[in-house]
């Protein structure tokens, strides 16, 4: 099947909105990792009433990475940080008129960048409630790991079989075919996301394979 970008994605790629840096931002965040191939930096200027007055992004990434950062910053601009926290990656995909499922993880990264920047602001203003590391917190993060060929997160796909947390050690058991070509990418994404959680010292990811039916 020919996987293509639609004209709206191309337009945002060619002429991205809100691209650049804010000098002396009120908050900032850099998410992603070189191993996965894309990184996004988000800068925020917050005004009275916790409203996002200005937002800028930088990107090391592909066309859809740049396009989703462009649309997500558009969506967040002028909103309160509470409202911005509620923007879903599916909304970004919808606003772009759709993305190939294999690229959904780009929009997740842009949303993660926005949320990380807002958390940075809450931390700086002494309002961040550090959540305690728990299986639920880990599961929340895993909702943001997309299985590329389906464009659906691995929790909804029931590929996460077990989450264990003990003294900063996180164990995650997955259920994928042993030779699933996307397994490496999924494991890398999990590592990247879980290592950002508070109190994580060690991550163990085990693929149990797919049981006999």
């Amino acid at each position: 099947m020919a996987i293509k970008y639609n004209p709206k994605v191309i337009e945002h790629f060619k002429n991205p909105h809100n691209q650049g840096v804010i000098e002396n931002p009120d908050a900032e965040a850099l998410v992603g990792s070189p191993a996965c191939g894309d990184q996004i930096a988000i800068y925020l200027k917050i005004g009275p009433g916790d409203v996002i007055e200005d937002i800028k992004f930088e990107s090391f990434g592909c066309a859809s990475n740049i396009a989703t950062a462009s649309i997500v910053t558009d969506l967040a601009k002028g909103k309160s940080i509470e409202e911005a926290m509620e923007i879903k990656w599916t909304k970004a995909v919808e606003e772009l008129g759709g993305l190939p499922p294999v690229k959904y993880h780009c929009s997740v990264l842009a949303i993660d960048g926005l949320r990380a920047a807002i958390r940075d602001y809450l931390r700086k203003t002494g309002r961040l409630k550090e959540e305690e590391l728990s299986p639920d917190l880990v599961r929340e993060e895993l909702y943001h790991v997309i299985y590329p060929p389906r464009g659906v997160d691995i929790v909804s796909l029931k590929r996460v079989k077990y989450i264990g947390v003990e003294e900063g050690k996180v164990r995650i058991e997955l259920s994928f075919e042993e030779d699933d070509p996307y397994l490496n990418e999924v494991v890398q994404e999990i590592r990247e996301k879980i290592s950002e959680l508070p109190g994580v010292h060690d991550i163990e990811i085990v693929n149990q394979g797919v049981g006999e039916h």
Partner: protein
Amino acid sequence: MRAYFDHCRSTFVDPRVLEEMRPWWTEKYWSPAPFTYTGTTVAEAVEESQMAFAKLIKGKPEEVHFAPSHTVANNIAIQGPLSTGTDELPHVVTTAVEHGTIMDTVRHMEKLGLMRVTYVPVDKNGVVDLDALREAITPQTSLVSLATVNYMVGAIQPVDQISSIVRERNPRAVLHFDITWSLGRTLDHSFAPLADIVTASVERIHGPKGLTMLWVRKGVNVKGPIYGSQAYSRVVPGALDVPAIVGARKALELMLDDLPGKIQHMKRLRDRLIKETMDAVPETLLNGPEGDLRSPSNVCLTFRYIEGESVQMYLDMEDITVDTGSACANPFLEANHTLLAMYGDYERAHGAIRLSLSWASTDEEVSKFVEVIPDIVAKLRKISPLAPKEYKER
């Protein structure tokens, strides 16, 4: 007109090749067979192609077979010689930088528990580490399989030394060379005396799509993995794609016409691409070897701080086709393993752009690329969180 720099993947079929092929579909559409006019007419045409390839690589015509695709040919080359007749798991030696047609096959077989594989490392140029190769080959090794020119960075492998090491360490080990990226890129194609199996896809020399020559030295036992009628070939069972086999011979003939001139032409364009791009774009890294260690048709560059798929897409919008090592452009989101094996640097792999040439490439195409690339890189560096400040203020 589009500037096309992806000849390492595919080339246009030369119109003269297509002309040569046409009657074998429409008028002489028969199958090879003994005695009859129709059968022998076709059999002779196939023999002519066998002779042409045998002459090129210095093998015997009856040792030349034709597979319908590069992947099929390399699967036969790798899986065919492995029936050891004992319970012992076959040991295969390859390199860390092979093309998918070898790499994905051995990785899969390894996963299925059907072979033990040693991946020999390469140096910073992408050239096989000969000491590591020597060490990897044991009396238990049944097969050594590698490409004579690397598809990604164009590193020309020291085939004479590799062959001597394999023979010296284990004379019973089967040596497979995939010469696909050597075809028309090196002056000397006499690979058969050095090896036991040679594969060569003609898709990169303006030949028909898919068709791949598979030479197997007489006496080398190749069985499977494909079964069927062995009437035409004991190595590649099934009916023959006669038009493609005829077209492959024509493509070879055209390739050999002034080959030194063709190589010189590609070298000049290659060096123009490298020099003019590196002059125009600061912090550009050349991946792979310099000068004569490099295939005349390969250019592989990384523009620091930016990602390859974006560069590829911007170039595409300017009607320029290139390839990239970026995970973003890979269907399984994996960065190019050749570049990772060479440099261990994800950013370098994600940022890599490969431009591959043929003798049909032109100065106009090179100029078109060199003209647009500085602005594309500048634009992407401007928005990259990894780029130093100086790139943001332009």
